[in-house]
């Protein structure tokens, strides 16, 4: 879906401020009353990112803002900008979408192509929370994957929260309590930062094999959110995503088999970037 973005303002003007280079483009001014920020960045099984992308599709959500950060690198670990379709520049940014459910719940959906680099995660996610505060976000929920060795088709979702009261809200909607361990990267950090910044916060993790994009893990997370926010989620979106992933995996397997049958040496690809 190609979306025209017209910049209507910038809440963060501090390119080169004390914590780094940041800039915010605002495409639509919103004034939620008590919204929930749902973060879905790439991680185990791409569960969080897939979940947020599917929610964006479900709501046909509109982009409201885009955060540039010097700590957002390309997926291959380089600093720079991507080129899509051979000509279009693709910036590595954190993108925010706004959606409201039929029952009046307001959601800010946050996603990106990559996570901020380790050493810039506190700084970048603090900027995100500053922005969330300006939108009067009340609750921050990060979505991610919980890797297990053996998984079936039906998956569960686990939750850890900033308070026992919030845990209960999630368990009433079908999530199981995560008892111990660590939640690493941006998925853990944003809710940790939110908890010491007067937001309610929770991390919701869908069980995944963690090896490749896992829409079934994302579905486990969406099922909980569906009950909690009365989203009335269209399940055909997940079904289609599952088929897409299975088709890609099948193609990959077939290509590998062909290469191995022919005994062909895998040629080193040309460098996909310019320096």
């Amino acid at each position, binding site marked *: 879906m190609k979306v025209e973005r017209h910049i209507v303002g910038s809440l963060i003007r501090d390119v080169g401020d004390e914590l780094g280079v940041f800039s915010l483009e605002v495409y639509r001014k919103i004034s939620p009353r008590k919204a929930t920020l749902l973060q879905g960045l790439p991680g185990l099984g791409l569960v969080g990112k897939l979940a947020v992308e599917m929610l964006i599709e479900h709501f046909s959500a509109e982009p409201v803002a885009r955060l540039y950060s010097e700590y957002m690198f390309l997926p291959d670990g380089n600093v720079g900008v991507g080129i899509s379709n051979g000509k279009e520049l693709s910036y590595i940014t954190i993108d925010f979408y706004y959606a409201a459910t039929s029952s009046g719940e307001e959601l800010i959906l946050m996603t990106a192509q990559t996570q901020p680099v380790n050493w810039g995660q506190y700084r970048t996610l603090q900027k995100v929370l500053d922005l969330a505060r300006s939108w009067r976000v009340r609750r921050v929920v990060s979505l991610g994957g919980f890797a297990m060795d053996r998984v079936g088709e039906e998956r569960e979702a686990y939750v850890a929260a900033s308070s026992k009261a919030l845990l209960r809200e999630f368990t009433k909607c079908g999530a199981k*309590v995560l008892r111990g361990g660590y*939640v690493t990267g941006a*998925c853990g950090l944003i809710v940790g930062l939110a908890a010491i910044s007067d937001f309610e916060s929770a991390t919701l993790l869908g069980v995944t094999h963690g090896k490749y994009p896992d829409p079934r893990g994302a579905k486990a997370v969406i099922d909980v959110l569906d009950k909690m926010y009365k989203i009335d989620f269209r399940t055909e979106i997940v079904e289609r995503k599952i088929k897409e992933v299975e088709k890609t995996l099948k193609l990959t397997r077939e290509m590998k088999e062909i290469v191995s049958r022919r005994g062909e040496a895998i040629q080193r690809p040309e460098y996909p970037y310019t320096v």
Partner: protein
Amino acid sequence: MKYWVKTIRYSNREYRNPIVVIGFPGIGLVGLQAIRYMAEKLNAEKVAEIYSEYLYLQSASTGIMVGPDGTFTLPKYTIYGYSGTPSMLLVESDTQPVVWAVYKSLDTVFSFLRQFRPKGVIVLTGYSSRGEREVFYVASSNWMLDKLKKLGISSRAKVGSVIMAAGASIVLSKLYGWPCISLTASVKSAVDIEGTRILIETLSKLLGFSIELSDLDEMAKEAERAEMVIKLIAPTTPREGRVDYIL
């Protein structure tokens, strides 16, 4: 460029010229365990928590630690206050700061401590040893030396360096103009409660406070059970040779 740090203050009580006692997660966890045990048994109040972008999880990534009840916390420094005799500020952290920012990260803690005008700093550490149980000290000045000698504590260091946050604390104490002692216990296991006990015993004699140590017995049994389980799951061969640092 500045860096991300957040201090949450829980108490505004005045601690005049306290002795700062520091213990970080290191060899045998003796320093950290000693601070946490003393904070609990002395009913020390929480003075502040300091969050730093340089405190990562043990897996070398950012993130949160989830407790058994399903609630979570970011890694942080915690400062406890004891207003008895002597007045003490007890400092610990959930993890070590990342190696490239140990000083920067600890400096936020030291600059917080400066307002109390500390009398001196005692850093609790451990070193790996198969020999007899003992504590030795190294000192940056003459502070407390007479008492240490009277107590018969060895000044013969068994190792060549004090590393990471413990070592940086000794350096920063000097830079802040505070006398500093490092008390180091011999350590024989991953979570060494006996090492923790001799550190607390030594410190209580040195500073003249009394503390109930009987709960350490139960902790020792638990640690022993945990270590047996770890050995069963992941048998390892101890590495031979001289360990030349304190953590």
